[in-house]
């Protein structure tokens, strides 16, 4: 340098002379530039580190929870249902429950320890419960520690999915103080023994790896610290070039400069890649614990923790399902490293090494399990929240989803469709399905089936497949008739003969009855029981198609259909969800509540975001609803849905309507009991004939679903304003006290005008005479 100075002093701005001079000059310039460039590069890396790492480190999706199972004495919950629910929740069956999330079944008693959970209206603490069953009901619930009776308890709700951000990742965030100590020990022992001592890069371990690699003639060991791995995982892709490694090293140092060891470790625990679930990656130990073991991280046993730690090095290479021996070997190596690292674990290691891998048969987290229902949740949220909030703020959404109903529906769909295809010589996979199950009074959506493969996150037929509803519309026609000013009752006689209607444009419409059968004349209630087309059209023409449309709108239909007579036979396209919405008031005394999939929403720290308050709207009078309900019960009792009576043991008192469209393209069934409503559509995506009627197709699926569930019969009598009367079945005339009559419900202020002659001569005559005394 002195030489240079001397030179510049003597030569001022003159260029260097000679090769040596030039090269030194250039070298210095180059060195300066390189340093500047280097500093700039480091600064840029530093910026990246700070940006990514401070504040929100990654987008946390909204978590979606099912309804919590409420247990109380008298509840229609069997031991099997309770254990199924606990399986969904990841509870473990053990010899003697000692911790939350464990249970044991002995004879007809289930002894469990529930997990604590913070609900909207208060905390439910972990509780030890002994639940005793009496057949398919809970007989008693006792707290064995205090020997007190419990009148009501809530289990924690099942996690059923997430609403993902665009890049398809998912997390269950864990805090460092929440994770098991075994995890930290295993991790450090295996991946980075000197984590707490180095500065981000560990030259000793690099050196060791180098030696090992040279010996092995290839890359046998990485020398990466946990910090370096975090950088690799978080920022950069998987190209392993020298430049990458250099960047990685620099960023690791920068990371250590800005953040504490604990912060880095915590980020690592939440970031590290531990598997793939289709298009979704499994990142972080919290999620991995659920994915591989269906258990929360805090509840993992030593050998399970060791397996996860072993997978860090290569989740595909050590995939426990694909390469179980390799995974086992790796796990045991981790256990050995733990024992070497700290004697505290030594005595547990041997037992742990004896354990099998312990992973679940099928991993079931995330949207991949219940896309149909999650789709509905997303739609309902989109009305009220920004998409970006949904996808990044870690919302907790508590829904109405019932995993037991969903499971029953999915099994029913799979088995029944296969059966229908076999029996009907149809191509395997040609039939499709869309179904929705809800409660009646509270209008909560329990389950959604978007297609025969419920795991596929594709076209959601339950919410999006608009199909002609066919005969499902007939109850609406009857309701409009009963409520309208024409004075029609369930006993009114309606013609059912070949019919030909000339439309305004000159076209002729000739509706046909199923099987070309003509009844001559029927009572109004028969048109539902036997789904009689022409009689329905006659009623519809008498009251006017606009009346029917008005009734549809009253029931919440958003469309504005054209008043064509074909509407009377269901030339109206609706989705299964819309049909459920239409039938819900019929199952709830005429009071409608919009179907809801969400009970409450909370943000990532548990603060409430919005409540969905319960409100109802009267869609039809209670009396008309009661008459219609009775009529629909007759459909099951002796009509087109009577098959239910031998298809399920609990069909007593249920109501329903079958629906079939032209050429058997669509098979529908809408049915309800006291507590549950279900709508099922079966058909083909290509709209060809499915060869199924409502009762041979959709109704079978409905029955298969409901026979496993505690659907209750409808037990209500008539409300005030409605009353029973006997009528002459062939004339519809009032015939109280006579023989050979039919007993029907009527609106009290709308009885048949005609009285059968038998009423003059029989008991009613006595009553009349008695009345005369009081005149």
């Amino acid at each position, binding site marked *: 340098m002195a030489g240079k100075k001397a030179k510049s002093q003597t030569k001022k701005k003159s260029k260097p002379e000679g090769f040596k001079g030039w090269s030194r000059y250039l070298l210095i310039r180059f060195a300066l530039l390189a340093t500047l460039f280097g500093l700039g590069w480091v600064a840029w890396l530093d910026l990246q580190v700070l940006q990514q790492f401070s504040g929100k480190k990654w987008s946390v999706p909204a978590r979606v929870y099912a309804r919590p199972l*409420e247990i109380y*004495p008298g509840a229609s919950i069997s031991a099997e249902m309770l254990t199924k629910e606990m399986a969904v929740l990841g509870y473990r069956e053990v010899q003697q429950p000692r911790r939350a999330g464990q249970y044991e079944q002995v004879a007809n008693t289930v002894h469990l320890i529930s997990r604590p959970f913070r609900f909207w209206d208060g905390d439910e603490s972990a509780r030890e419960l002994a639940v005793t069953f009496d057949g398919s009901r809970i007989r008693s619930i006792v707290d064995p520690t205090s020997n007190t009776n419990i*009148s009501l308890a809530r289990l924690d709700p099942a996690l059923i999915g997430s609403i993902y951000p665009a890049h398809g990742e998912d997390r269950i965030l864990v805090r460092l103080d929440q994770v098991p100590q075994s995890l930290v020990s295993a991790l450090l022992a295996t991946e980075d023994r000197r984590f707490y001592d180095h500065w981000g890069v560990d030259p000793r371990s690099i050196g060791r790896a180098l030696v090992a690699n040279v010996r092995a003639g290839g890359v046998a060991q990485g020398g990466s610290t946990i910090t370096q791995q975090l950088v690799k995982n978080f920022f950069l892709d998987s190209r392993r070039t020298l430049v990458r490694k250099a960047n990685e090293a620099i960023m690791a140092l920068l990371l250590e400069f800005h953040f504490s060891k604990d912060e880095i470790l915590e980020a690592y625990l939440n970031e590290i890649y531990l598997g793939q679930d289709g298009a979704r990656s499994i990142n972080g130990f919290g999620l991995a614990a659920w994915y591989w073991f269906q258990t929360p991280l805090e509840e993992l046993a030593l050998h399970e923790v060791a397996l996860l730690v072993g997978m860090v090095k290569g989740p595909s290479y050590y995939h426990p399902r694909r390469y179980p021996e390799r995974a086992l070997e790796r796990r045991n190596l981790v256990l050995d490293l733990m024992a070497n690292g700290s004697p505290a674990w030594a005595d547990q290691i041997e037992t742990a090494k004896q354990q099998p891998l312990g992973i679940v048969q099928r991993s079931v987290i995330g949207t991949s399990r219940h896309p149909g229902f999650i789709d509905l949740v997303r739609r309902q949220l989109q009305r009220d929240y920004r998409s970006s909030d949904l996808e990044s703020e870690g919302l907790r959404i508590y829904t109405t989803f019932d995993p037991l109903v969903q499971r029953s529906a999915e099994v029913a769909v799979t088995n029944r469709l296969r059966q229908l295809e076999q029996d009907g010589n149809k191509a395997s996979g040609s039939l499709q399905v869309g179904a929705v199950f809800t409660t009646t009074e509270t209008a909560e959506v329990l389950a959604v089936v978007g297609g025969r493969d419920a795991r596929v996150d594709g076209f959601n037929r339950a919410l999006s497949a608009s199909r002609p509803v066919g005969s499902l519309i007939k109850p609406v026609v009857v309701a409009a008739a009963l409520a309208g000013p024409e004075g029609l009752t369930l006993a009114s006689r309606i013609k059912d003969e070949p019919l030909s209607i000339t439309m305004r444009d000159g076209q002729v419409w000739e509706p046909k009855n199923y099987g070309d059968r003509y009844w001559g004349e029927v009572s109004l209630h028969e048109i539902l029981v036997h789904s009689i087309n022409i009689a329905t059209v006659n009623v519809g023409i008498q009251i006017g198609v606009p009346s029917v449309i008005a009734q549809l709108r009253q029931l919440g239909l958003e469309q504005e259909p054209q008043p064509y007579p074909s509407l009377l036979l269901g030339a109206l396209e609706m989705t299964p969800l819309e049909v459920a919405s239409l039938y819900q008031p019929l199952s709830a005394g005429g009071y409608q509540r919009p179907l809801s999939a969400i009970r409450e929403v909370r943000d990532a720290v548990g603060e409430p975001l919005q409540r969905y308050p*319960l409100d109802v709207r009267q869609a039809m009078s209670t009396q008309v609803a009661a008459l219609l309900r009775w009529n629909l019960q007759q459909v099951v009792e002796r009509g087109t849905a009577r098959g239910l009576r031998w298809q399920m043991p609990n069909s007593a008192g249920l109501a329903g309507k079958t629906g079939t469209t032209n050429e058997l393209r669509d098979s529908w069934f809408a049915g309800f009991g006291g507590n549950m409503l279900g709508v099922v559509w079966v058909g083909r995506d290509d709209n060809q004939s499915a060869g199924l009627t409502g009762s041979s197709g959709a109704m079978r699926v409905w029955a298969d679903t409901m026979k496993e569930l505690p659907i209750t019969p409808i037990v*209500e009598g008539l409300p005030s304003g409605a009353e029973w009367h006997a009528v002459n079945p062939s004339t519809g005339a009032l015939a109280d006290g006579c023989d050979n009559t039919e007993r029907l419900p009527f609106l009290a202020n709308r009885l048949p005008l005609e009285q059968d002659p038998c009423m003059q001569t029989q008991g009613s005559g006595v009553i009349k005479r008695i009345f005369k005394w009081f005149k």
Partner: protein
Amino acid sequence: MNLKMTRFGFVLALVLITSGCASMGFGGGMAPLKTNPWADQPPYEWPPYQQSNAPDLAIGPAPQALLAEADNHYEMGRYDACAASLERALRLEPRAPVVWYRLAALRASQHDYASANRLSEKATSLTTENTSARVVQWLDWLSDWLVTQLNSPRR
């Protein structure tokens, strides 16, 4: 003997007749119910609930416990939690008039009269001859009161 006695006798007779009528009361044979507590202006109170630990409310112990919880929340001014407890009770007993009634009453106390009216009508539609007379009466009072609120020019 004189005017005083006659007046006394007159008053006595009046008292006897009135108490006789009162004891005939509502629902035949039941204790006389108090007069409508909401005849006056709001603030809307919830008195019938505090007064009744009525076993004739015809719902099970589990929803009963939730109604008590709801009461507690209401007392403490936690109206959202109150609604949540009531809705929870409703899921267990979706057709109990008394639960729908309470939701209606809660809504009314929060000045959402339209919603309260709908819920109250729903509750009424569920009453049967087995519904306790008390609940029927409360529903009557509530709907009367709501009608006046909904029809008054000032809300």
